[in-house]
């Protein structure tokens, strides 16, 4: 390089730096007319600077259409009927509505939906300052960050478009998804498929073909109570109707499994060290502060909370790095179960937490509240007042709370009934196969709300779960016992059975059991290459003791 060349390069580098600085100003809406003029002079004078400028602004524009920082559903469909006309005056949203039957329009609407959904997510922009401009005390109850979400795969039909946990709707034709673990999936429409993680999916209806391209990869497809896990193969799973699933193995073999209906985590507090002193106690991954062990409602121990801000039980297990990871991350369903004796006063802005995991807007909680739902989280809307709240983040809908008013109406208990000094069995469930979110008290469903079938849970992440408090703001008043956490929705029958047993002082299950994060499924049979079997799902939703699944050869 000659001196002139070096000098020229240095000047070009310096000018490029200036171009990028000016571009940043424009992106930030801080560009003055002088800045625009300077940028224009630089760009007109030097073609190389125009290239640099365009490459830099391309980063800005591609970030705006990238899903990497987004979460929520992607809606897709292929090959459907053509609209008869497109009106020039239609807005983009109107255009998309008219053409919603078309592949292109649905793809765009998926994108627009994502943006709009995120924009309208409750509480995102809210400040909730009081009249004096001070932050409301409500603010401290909720961490409203959107934490990073795990990427599970790439939608091939959209050319390397990354997606996080999502439900894919394929009206007709096929959609192709490559997981980050190297699994090729063809979702054959009409179908609804939940891409819940890079190694697992949930089939709600329709058919999916899985092809494992790498020798050591694993992939499983779950449907109601049944899971098909590969053993180095190519296989197809089709949900024929509500009760029948067909498994077809094209190469290798698969293992068909039924769900083991036990909790992921169970805290019985039977062997829990009492800790009312200053030092926290640590036992089996649980840290407790100023919590006293008392005789159990079930078993030998329970925990007593005396409405102290410094009383808290923290769970060390189950946290993950990103949303969608960690042992507490669920996708197809969830249940939170506990027995409580509550002395909550039902006062305004007085929260009593039973269970909570605060992963920003992907939190989950089961708590007594009376806050008037200041962030608009309540779904459905209910009259303000004391309620039992079940909060959960659902794909497409974002975070919402099923706030069950304690008003004595429509079968719901009153505040006085739920705080009458006797034990009450409380269960909150969500089932993606029905889209139903429910609260059960004392063995009976008391309130529910239906979301779209196939809507996945998106939870998990770095926060530690808490029992009996959240931070130091929401201390429980009373006794908590037998807290159980499941990665599926308990059935009405199971809940009624658990309640009946608990009221007799018995554990939820007749047979001795332990919670397990690894034993979630039990092998039923092997299906080998060239064969097809049909499975009856109707017998799979009973407690594990009653499982009687029998595969039938398809005729």
């Amino acid at each position: 390089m000659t001196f002139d060349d070096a000098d020229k390069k240095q000047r070009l580098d310096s000018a490029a730096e200036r171009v990028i600085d000016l571009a940043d100003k424009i992106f930030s809406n801080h560009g003055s007319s002088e800045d625009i003029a300077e940028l224009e002079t630089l760009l007109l004078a030097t073609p190389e600077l125009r290239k640099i400028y365009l490459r830099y602004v391309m980063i800005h524009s591609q970030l705006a259409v990238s899903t990497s920082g987004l979460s929520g559903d992607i809606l897709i469909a292929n090959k459907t009927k053509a609209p008869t006309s497109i009106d020039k005056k239609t807005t983009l949203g109107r255009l998309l509505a008219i053409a919603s039957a078309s592949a292109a329009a649905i793809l765009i609407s998926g994108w627009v939906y994502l943006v709009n959904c995120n924009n309208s997510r409750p509480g995102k922009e809210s400040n909730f300052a009081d009249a004096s401009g001070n932050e409301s005390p409500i603010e401290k109850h909720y961490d409203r960050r959107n934490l990073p979400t795990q990427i599970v795969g790439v939608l091939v039909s959209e050319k390397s478009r990354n997606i996080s946990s999502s439900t894919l709707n394929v009206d007709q034709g096929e959609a192709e998804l490559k997981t980050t673990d190297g699994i090729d999936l063809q979702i054959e429409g009409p179908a609804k498929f939940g891409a819940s993680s890079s190694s697992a999916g949930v089939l709600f209806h329709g058919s999916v073909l899985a092809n494992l391209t790498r020798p050591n990869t694993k992939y499983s497809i779950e449907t109601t109570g049944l899971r098909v896990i590969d053993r180095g193969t190519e296989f197809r799973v089709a949900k024929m109707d509500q009760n029948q699933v067909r498994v077809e193995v094209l190469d290798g073999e698969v293992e068909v499994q039924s769900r083991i209906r036990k909790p992921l985590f169970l805290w019985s507090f039977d062997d829990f060290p009492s800790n009312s002193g200053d030092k926290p106690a640590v036992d089996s991954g649980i840290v407790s502060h100023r919590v006293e062990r008392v005789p159990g409602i079930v078993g030998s121990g329970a925990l007593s909370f005396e409405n102290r801000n410094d009383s808290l039980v923290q769970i060390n297990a189950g946290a993950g790095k990103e949303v969608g990871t960690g042992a507490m991350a669920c996708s197809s369903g969830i249940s939170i179960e506990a027995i409580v004796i509550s002395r909550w006063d039902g006062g305004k802005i007085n929260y009593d937490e039973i269970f909570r995991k605060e992963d920003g807007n992907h939190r989950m909680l089961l708590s007594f509240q009376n806050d008037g739902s200041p962030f608009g989280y309540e779904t459905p809307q209910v009259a303000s007042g004391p309620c039992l709240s079940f909060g959960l983040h659902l794909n497409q809908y974002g975070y919402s709370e099923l706030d069950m008013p304690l008003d004595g109406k429509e079968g719901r208990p009153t505040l006085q009934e739920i705080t009458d000094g006797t034990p009450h069995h409380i269960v909150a469930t969500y089932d993606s196969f029905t889209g139903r979110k429910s609260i059960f008290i004392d063995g009976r469903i008391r309130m529910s709300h239906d979301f779209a079938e196939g809507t996945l849970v998106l939870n998990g992440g770095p926060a530690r779960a808490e029992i009996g408090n959240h931070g130091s703001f929401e201390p429980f008043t009373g006794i908590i016992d037998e807290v159980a956490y499941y990665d599926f929705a308990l059935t009405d029958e199971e809940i009624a059975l658990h309640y009946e047993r608990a009221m007799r002082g018995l554990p939820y299950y007749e047979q001795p059991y332990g919670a397990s994060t690894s034993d979630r499924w039990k092998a039923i049979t092997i299906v080998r290459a060239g064969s097809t079997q049909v499975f009856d799902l109707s017998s799979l939703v009973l407690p594990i003791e009653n499982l009687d699944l029998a595969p039938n050869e398809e005729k």
Partner: protein
Amino acid sequence: MNDHASSDPELYEEFLQLFTRDQLRIFAWIRALVHDPTASSDVFQETSLEMWRSFASFRPDADFLRWALGIARHQVLKYWRKARRDRHAFSDELIQELTAESFSFAEELAPRQAALDDCIRKLSDRQRDLIHRFYGDNQSATAIAEAWQRSVHAVYKSLKVMRRFLFECVEAKMMEQSQ
């Protein structure tokens, strides 16, 4: 109203197939030249409509993306001409140069997006949160500053640092691919 829309559903299906494949690249291209997010959506809408109106003249053996960007270019120029009343607008000459130059990016749009997705994975949790908020949720810098309990200036600076990192990372990846 398109005369061929109702009369030729096969043509419409063909259009949809091609449009579905390239729509995000077309939108990213427009967004690079029209910085205001709302305005870029409007330009994309007009472009989409115009593409459909003109699709009967599209030759099946031609490059759909280049054809689409040609239509998008007209719409971008139209936007800037209207915006010229704003003293903060680029001149017609510069927009002509930029749109012409950006045609060379047509083939690079897909690999650049893939490289960008790879580079995003290298960002810190905080930076990814920033992308999520600013680009995903369309939050303002002021709203992010409030959520982070930082100054607005600090948010803009973080955006600048993050974009710069991604720019250098994408350029390095594109360089690797070309070698």
